[in-house]
């Protein structure tokens, strides 16, 4: 009976979206750690940064979201990829 009383309020949608984003964050972090292909692992860290930037926006921190989007998603990934090009791609 309690379940029937729930209505689809914006508050509930907001909380559900936050929960899904946090779950995806943890999943992307685990993915980037267990993946043997280092290129995929770097894509995983980039995904972590992207979700983190959306979460900062939800937490009313637009400055931090902009910084994370510019530094975490773009530049850190680029530096990782350059370093991967100079070394080996697969983890033994």
């Amino acid at each position: 009976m309690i379940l029937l009383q729930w209505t689809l309020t914006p508050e509930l949608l907001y909380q559900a979206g936050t929960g899904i984003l946090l779950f995806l964050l943890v999943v992307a972090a685990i993915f980037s750690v267990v993946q043997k292909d280092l290129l995929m692992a770097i894509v995983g860290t980039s995904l972590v940064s992207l979700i983190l930037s959306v979460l900062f926006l939800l937490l009313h921190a637009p400055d931090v979201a902009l910084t994370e989007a510019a530094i975490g998603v773009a530049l850190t990934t680029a530096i990782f990829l350059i370093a991967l090009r100079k070394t080996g791609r697969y983890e033994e």
Partner: protein
Amino acid sequence: MIYYIASIAVMLIGLYAVLVKKNLIKIVIGLSLMDAGTHLLLVAIGFIKGGTAPIFSEPGLTADAMVDPVPQALVLTAIVIGLAVTAVALALVIRIYAQHKTLDIRKISSLKW
């Protein structure tokens, strides 16, 4: 509350990568994951329910209904420093690879005694 759990989980995953993984790039990835978890934790501490962003962009916004700006300024600093740390660590990794032709930390043994 769920923010705290998720950020602590991300920090622990990064710590696991630093402790267990043998590949140097994986270790740097773990360091950057620990950074990310700390940033989320700090910003989540400063959050206030029903608050707005700490920018007085329109008339009528009052200081009472704003989230805490101090953790955001701290995290802003921390992200930039994290980028610097990552860049220097990856430069070290490139140098080690040129010297030893491997990224496996078990095979890099010239500094052990």
